């Protein structure tokens, strides 16, 4: 039972991070390799707001979330907007540079030591027992709930709202979208904002659960295989991919060797790339185009 809970928590972490990769890739074909750093920035953002709004924890979380959203929008307008028309590779390299820069700035500002945003907010990460003997921490439960909410929200948004439909349209044919009066800049910025928002939420909750250190960025890196296994352009794929990677990782830790935890996602990714390079739910041509 406890194993099942652990799998669910880990899969939620990966899934919540993965949807950011998918969103940006789907609308603009750009692989955002700085996504792990954006997640990290979200977590440190909470640390910052927690120390200034310490008395109002919900305000702190709210402000940090909005900041995470705005960071994505800002990055799009300041940097990525100028990459439209350049090759996709150039844009991807640009995101790598942004990632390295962000990591450096964060280390400079907050140092390499461990922080505990949960305590700063004045909350306790209490352990809740579920199904009798199994236990789950409050922050982990929050993670699962956040993932469920974000994914259902995104599914509904993409399927039923005008902006969501425009997002899918722009991802398929940007030129036609522009000719139909859709502002590509607005759509791309929205995708970036949603990606850093969901990533930031993931970062905050992870930091609340297990403390915050610069090594948190490796979790973002490990979510990338989960996205690829599912197929880069599919939200459903990201969900399933995260579940697969999460399961494999937890089982390996439990039954083989805890040291394998960092290797597991990439091992599964390799197997996947050999047999089905476009992922479980991805579209075949989508990958060829890159």
């Amino acid at each position: 039972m406890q194993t099942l809970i652990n799998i669910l928590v880990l899969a939620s972490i990966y899934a919540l991070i993965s949807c950011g990769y998918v969103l940006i890739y789907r609308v603009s074909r750009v692989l955002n390799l700085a996504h792990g750093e954006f997640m990290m920035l979200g977590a440190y953002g909470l640390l910052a707001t927690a120390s200034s709004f310490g008395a109002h924890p919900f305000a702190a979380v709210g402000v940090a979330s909005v900041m995470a959203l705005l960071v994505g929008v800002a990055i799009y307008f300041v940097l990525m907007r100028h990459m439209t028309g350049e090759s996709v590779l150039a844009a991807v390299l640009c995101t790598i540079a942004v990632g390295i820069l962000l990591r450096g700035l964060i280390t400079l500002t907050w140092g390499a030591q461990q922080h505990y945003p949960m305590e700063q907010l004045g909350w306790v990460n209490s352990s809740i027992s579920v199904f009798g003997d199994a236990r789950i921490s409050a922050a982990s439960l929050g993670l699962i709930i956040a993932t469920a909410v974000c994914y259902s929200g995104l599914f509904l948004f993409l399927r039923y709202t005008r902006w969501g439909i425009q997002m899918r349209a722009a991802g398929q044919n940007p030129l036609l979208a522009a000719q139909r009066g859709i502002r590509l800049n607005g759509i791309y910025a929205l995708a970036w904002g949603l990606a850093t928002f969901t990533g930031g939420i993931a970062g905050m909750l992870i930091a609340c659960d297990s403390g915050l250190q610069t090594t948190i960025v490796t979790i973002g890196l490990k979510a990338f295989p989960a996205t690829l296994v599912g197929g880069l352009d599919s939200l459903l794929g990201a969900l399933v991919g995260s579940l697969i990677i999460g399961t494999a990782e937890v089982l390996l830790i439990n039954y083989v060797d805890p040291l394998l935890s960092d290797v597991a996602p990439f091992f599964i990714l390799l197997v996947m790339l050999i047999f089905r390079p476009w992922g479980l739910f991805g579209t075949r041509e989508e990958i060829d185009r890159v």
Partner: protein
Amino acid sequence: MSTPATLKDKAILEVDKLEVSYHRVVTAIQGVTLEVRRGQIVALLGNNGAGKTTTLRAISGFLGIDDARVSEGTVRFCGKDIANRFPHEVAGMGIVLVPERDKVFENLTVQENLEANSPRQSSTLSRMQEAVYAYFPLLARLRGRQAGYLSGGERQMLAIGAALMCGPELLLVDELSLGLAPIIVEELAERLRAIRDELGLSILLVEQNAHVALEIADYGYIIENGRIVMDGDRERLTGHQDIQEFYLGAGGSGRRNYRDVKQYRRSRRWYG
């Protein structure tokens, strides 16, 4: 039509000595001058590579990825210069293009294709959608179908319908007849004329098939190698010897050798 003559005669689109280059070197069109008046259907006829698509694209705006720009000349819409604007700005002003290829969002359903547009006035949205389904009842039946599975004719209807959803004043249609059976083309052309009459918009229609175009157009231009070589109203163009031979496929008598050359050109147009 009931529009007063003064308004009717006013040019809604004026293209003057337009020159477009791709990748800063290839000059695709040079000195295209044409005019569309309010409520008119104007045909732009020409062979493969003559520059028809480029002309329409120059009017509707290029994106950075096209690496193309208007290097000379002006495009005026309702008196305002719109050369080198972004496509979404041009669409917002009321010029909407039905492109030659990739004219629908293949991953969206028919209904979503209609909804995806940014309309100029959102108030008219549901009314417009009803109108589109009334013009193309087939689309209403297919509304849940993914657009990628539509046939060529259905795609063309959807593309026109989706363009109408933007509430255009000027509709640019690139190759209405491309790859479609004559009977479908006939039907679409009739539908376009009805749309023009009832919605009071103007249409610039690009065609290789002069038969279809001259049937519904009020005025026509012939483009060759990036230049307008002839223009006139429908009567003048259909009556013109060269047009008959080049584009309408009616063989003149006498001049045997000259005709052979044209025969060659004509077949190159069909099979090329």
